[in-house]
């Protein structure tokens, strides 16, 4: 079952094409990153999916059905900015969210505890710092323990500890089998938590699929030895890799994803009289891939 399926979605603001024929689907249980620079259409797309923006063309389904307010109630969504009644406390705001979601009030205190807002639960929203507002928005998504969560730039405005906490929370949610759709312009964030990714640039979908397939076409094995000349000689006779490069006085061997066997490389070098003093398996960095894809 696909949680979300987007088909040829387009959105124009006058002459500006914010989304241009975007098509992809989000499998159940995945952490799906929507990656793109500012203004690439991430929030516009999520806004359409949440029915606060009208698409110019195209369609989408949620839980394989035509979406309506019932499907939205099954999803915890935090879109763009934390939107709450400024004159109400966290608890009173969450009571409104729970009532709209047609859920009970019983887990309000628990979700506030999850995001470390228990101490300030009765303070007005207007007195919160940006980070606290952000955390309240995430707490609001967790109400009713939904199976699907949509986060738009969830770590915006958080300090490093807050960022680490939210990432940890996302990992925990994933372990519970939840599907998470997360828009971000932070490459590092997507690389760390996502299983799948869709890359947007100026409203166009550049790539979508498994993170390992999209973001790492090669496994890179970096090798170093005291005698680099000899290492180069013997590696030339080794098979299995696609390409070989020298970088920062190290040798880089490019293997197809999942075919690398570090043990056999190490043994081969040793048996041919070269003792390695450096060996590391790297995925092609998301950043380099991102620039490669978007330029």
């Amino acid at each position, binding site marked *: 079952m696909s949680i979300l399926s987007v088909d040829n979605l387009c959105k124009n603001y006058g002459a500006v094409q914010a989304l241009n024929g975007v098509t992809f689907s989000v499998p159940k249980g995945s952490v799906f990153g929507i990656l793109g620079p500012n203004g690439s259409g991430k929030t516009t797309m999520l*806004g359409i999916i*949440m*029915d*606060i*923006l*009208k698409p110019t063309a195209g369609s989408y389904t949620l839980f394989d059905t035509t979406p*309506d*307010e*019932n499907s*939205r*109630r099954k999803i915890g*969504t935090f*879109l763009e*900015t934390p*939107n*709450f*009644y*400024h*004159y*109400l406390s966290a608890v*009173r705001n969450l*009571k*409104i*969210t729970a*009532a*709209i*979601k*047609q859920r009970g009030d019983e887990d309000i205190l628990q979700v506030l505890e999850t995001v470390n807002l228990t101490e300030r639960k009765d303070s007005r929203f207007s007195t919160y710092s940006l980070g606290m507002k952000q955390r309240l928005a995430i707490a*609001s998504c967790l109400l009713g323990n939904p199976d699907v969560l949509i986060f738009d730039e969830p770590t915006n405005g958080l300090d490093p500890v807050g960022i680490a906490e939210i990432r940890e929370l996302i990992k925990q949610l994933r372990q519970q089998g939840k599907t998470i759709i997360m828009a971000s312009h932070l490459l590092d964030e997507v690389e760390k938590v996502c299983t799948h990714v869709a890359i947007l640039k100026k409203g166009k979908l550049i790539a979508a699929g498994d993170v390992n397939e999209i973001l790492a076409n090669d496994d890179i094995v970096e090798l170093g030895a005291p005698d680099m000349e000899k290492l180069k000689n013997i590696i030339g006779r080794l098979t299995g890799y696609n390409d070989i490069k020298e970088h920062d006085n190290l040798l880089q061997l490019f293997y197809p994803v999942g075919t690398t066997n570090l043990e056999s490389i190490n043994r081969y070098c040793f048996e041919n009289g070269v003792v390695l003093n450096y060996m590391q398996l790297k995925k092609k960095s998301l950043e380099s891939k991102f620039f490669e894809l978007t330029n």
Partner: protein
Amino acid sequence: MIQLLKIEWLKIKNYNAFIILSSFFALGVVAVNYVAFSVYKNMISEVNAAKMMSSFSPYDFDRTWHTTSYFAGCILLLPGLLIIMLVTNEFTYRTHRQNIIDGWSRKQFIEVKIVLAIIAALASTALVILTALVFGLASGTSFSLEGFSFTGIFFLKALTYNMVALLISVLIRRTGFATGMFFIYMGFENFVSQLLDIWSIKLRRDNTIDLGSMGDYLPMNAADGLLTFPDNPVKSLARGVLPTDYTSVVMVLCAAYLVLFCWWSYNRIIKTDL
């Protein structure tokens, strides 16, 4: 709908502006009528002392329904302002988006606002009925329901004010601009209404065409015109010159405006980006 209204209540019950504006309106309705009541009472006792006219009070039954409705109608912009604040708050805090993201439909969002405007008009009318009753009884005359229909016209006027406020809020979205526009529109409509009244009189004089007080054909002046005292100088002049009774036309127009405002607000929320 009950569920939606309960949620609206959660939003407004701790909102200071709601408490203050509602209290001002409630106190205002009582105060403005009390002032009128006292003025008439004192004036009449003096007139009576001179034995120039028989005992008469605008708060006697059956006049109390009309008088109270008329004076309360003068401060109807307070519930209008309240509607503006409650609706534009949603746009300011972007909670209109969040409500829909969390699981309301756009239809539910606007429907509950329309119902809220109706409830505010009903509550204002209930307050007017109660005030009229108290002043009627205080004037020492026996209870009568004659003229009670004026409270119905008050309801129409309150509803028109609230619907105009709702429409302006939905179209403009920003509290300050919407409030400003509400006042500007009220002033503008009154000005045009006066011009139309003058034109009506001129038409009658020059072409013997009686189209009634055309100033009453505008949205906020329609129910207002029906509620205005017959001894209002401009109206009495207009009515003297324009004898045909166009009350039913004004009523139909008033209802048509209400439908138009509802439809416009509804369509705006349903069809545009939020």
